[in-house]
């Protein structure tokens, strides 16, 4: 869409020069106000002068004023064009001020030793956090766990695809099954971790423990050994998120034109064959979208781990997020935690870029 507007509007804006000047004055005036307040607050923070500010709120208010003035001035200065900018500008400003600024600030924190309960405040400590991270076996263990958790998506995908195929056939009570299958996704992970992790998997009276005993597992303990604990977390996460992939895949299946499957049937393809030759290739783009989004969500996995195992036993179930969460909770060291998070972000961005490039290559029709 870089060629031009989809919606052509011919306007004859006759903006008076007074209006334009007013708009510019609005932007620069509010920017000046913002700068003034910020400078005053910085002076107070460094101890050069005291203006009686209790916190940094005045700067925040000045920033909001500037943002509103910027939006308003777009219309004043640029007329019709400005009204179009007004569609995107608020969201863009919102996102920029809430991500780009904290990220830059985070970079600053990442290279410092900052214990929030320490009255000395922030101390720049150069590469000390990086060195500490490099030799922190628990962090690397958490990263490795993330790889395992992400690999579990393959199984989740297979199950979700199977369920989507079933829901797409001629069945009765389809609405009931759809609602029932969707419900796990709606539940809050915290409630799920109590419902399943703490009560149903309880080693003595939990119904699942009883079931396991009935199957002949003498002493069911779902969080005892590292492997089983990891598997249990994977299963619980799968339980919540399989509906998500299932619905995306179901939408994809319903978009496949009936003629194609019918034609393949006429040509003699049956069941398994028709699935691999027709359905699966057609579903490839949807599948890849679903898996990519699922990976993104999986990389944020934390709630269940924090609440059920708190990373135990011995860090076997730790995700990066839950590890950093505990790192902050236990030692309230903001600097080290931020460094870990930043490193994680870099890894994610690299991994996702590679994955998206690969996905792009796979889905591009071969000619």
């Amino acid at each position: 869409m870089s060629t031009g507007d989809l919606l052509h509007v011919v306007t004859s804006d006759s903006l008076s020069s007074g209006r334009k000047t007013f708009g510019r004055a609005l932007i620069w005036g509010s920017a000046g106000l913002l700068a003034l307040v910020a400078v005053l607050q910085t002076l107070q923070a460094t101890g050069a002068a005291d203006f009686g500010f209790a916190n940094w709120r005045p700067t925040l208010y000045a920033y909001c004023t500037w943002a509103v003035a910027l939006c308003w001035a777009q219309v004043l200065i640029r007329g019709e064009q400005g009204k179009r900018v007004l569609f995107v500008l608020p969201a863009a400003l919102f996102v920029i001020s809430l991500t780009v600024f904290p990220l830059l600030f985070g970079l600053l924190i990442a290279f410092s030793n900052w214990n929030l309960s320490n009255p000395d405040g922030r101390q720049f400590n150069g590469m000390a956090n990086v060195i500490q991270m490099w030799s922190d076996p628990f962090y690397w263990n958490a990263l490795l766990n993330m790889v395992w958790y992400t690999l579990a998506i393959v199984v989740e995908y297979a199950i979700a695809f199977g369920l989507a195929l079933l829901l797409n056939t001629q069945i009765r009570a389809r609405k009931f099954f759809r609602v029932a299958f969707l419900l796990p996704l709606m539940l809050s992970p915290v409630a799920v971790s109590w419902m399943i992790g703490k009560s149903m998997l309880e080693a003595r009276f939990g119904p699942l423990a009883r079931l396991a005993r009935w199957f002949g597992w003498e002493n069911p303990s779902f969080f005892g050994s590292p492997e089983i604990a990891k598997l249990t977390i994977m299963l619980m996460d799968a339980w919540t998120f399989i509906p998500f992939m299932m619905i995306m895949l179901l939408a994809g299946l319903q978009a496949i034109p009936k003629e194609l499957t019918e034609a393949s049937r006429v040509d003699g393809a049956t069941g398994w064959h028709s699935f691999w030759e027709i359905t699966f290739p057609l579903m490839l783009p949807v599948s890849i979208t679903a898996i990519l989004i699922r990976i993104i969500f999986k990389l944020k996995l934390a709630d269940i781990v924090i609440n059920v195992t708190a990373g135990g036993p011995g860090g076997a179930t730790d995700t990066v997020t839950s590890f950093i969460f505990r790192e902050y909770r236990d030692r309230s060291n903001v600097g080290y935690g931020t460094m870990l998070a930043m490193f994680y972000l870099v890894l994610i961005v690299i991994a996702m870029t590679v994955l998206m490039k690969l996905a792009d290559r796979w889905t591009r029709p071969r000619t």
Partner: protein
Amino acid sequence: MTEPAIFRDSEADLAFRAKWFANRLVVYGVLILWAFICLFPIYWTITTSFKMAPNVMQGNLIPWVDFQPKWLGWRSLGLSPDTIGAESTVRDEFTKRFLNSVITALTSSTLAVGLGSLAAYGLSRFSYRFAWMKNDDISFFFLSQLILPPVVLALPFLVLYKELALLDTRIGLILLYTLSVLPIVIWIMKDQFAAIPTELEEAAMVDGLGVWGAFLTIILPIALPGMVAAFILSLVLTWNEYFFAALITSTHSNTLPVMVASQTGSQGISWWSMAALSAAAILPLIVIGIFLERFIIKGMAAGAVK
């Protein structure tokens, strides 16, 4: 097939029908098994909230058959019929958390749908140039926020909020939640607006409406179902959010998930009260899930099919 048939079917037809029945049996078997897997934890939680200690120990499952339902769990929350009228500090606590959850979820979803729809509409209709960024870059910028794990923002926000005196306030949470669902809303809404033909606005503009007039009076009503879908999806996500709430709230503005989680830590014997609390936390979503299921599915399917 062993049962007597009224009409004599040929050998081939009988084989076909047997196969068909077997097929049906497997399909429904799998469907019912999975429905059971999905529903049993919910059933377990709700029934446990009516159990007494021995019922839990014995693993009784079916109310009135296995055990006699009691209001024990709900009484400990102050929500049972006999305590609902009386003063209850636990209930006040619960109501406060519940209201916090409702307010943050509703406000942030509304904000996200508002900001996101505007941005999505703009991106689907006009071509922009912010510095070096064109439309595709701006879209990518918005969507790339989805990749950003919350943990990266959490600690910087913690420090910033502390300086801004926004720690433990609803506004602080609302801002973060809006940010976290905005990419999803934009993704859904872009799809919605792209499906609406531009001729509609052109006609409206010929009739004398401006860009915003056409958007507000013509396009918004058409895109409303999509907006509802996006709204409900963000409602679910923000209602369930735990990580940020656990980090940046402590006493005044913590939400229901934080309350549930703080009880799990000190758990031990009072299964029924935990079950009641969990049930109360998930009930609104179950209601939403049952009645507004098609919107959720519509929202999630939006991006899947291009």
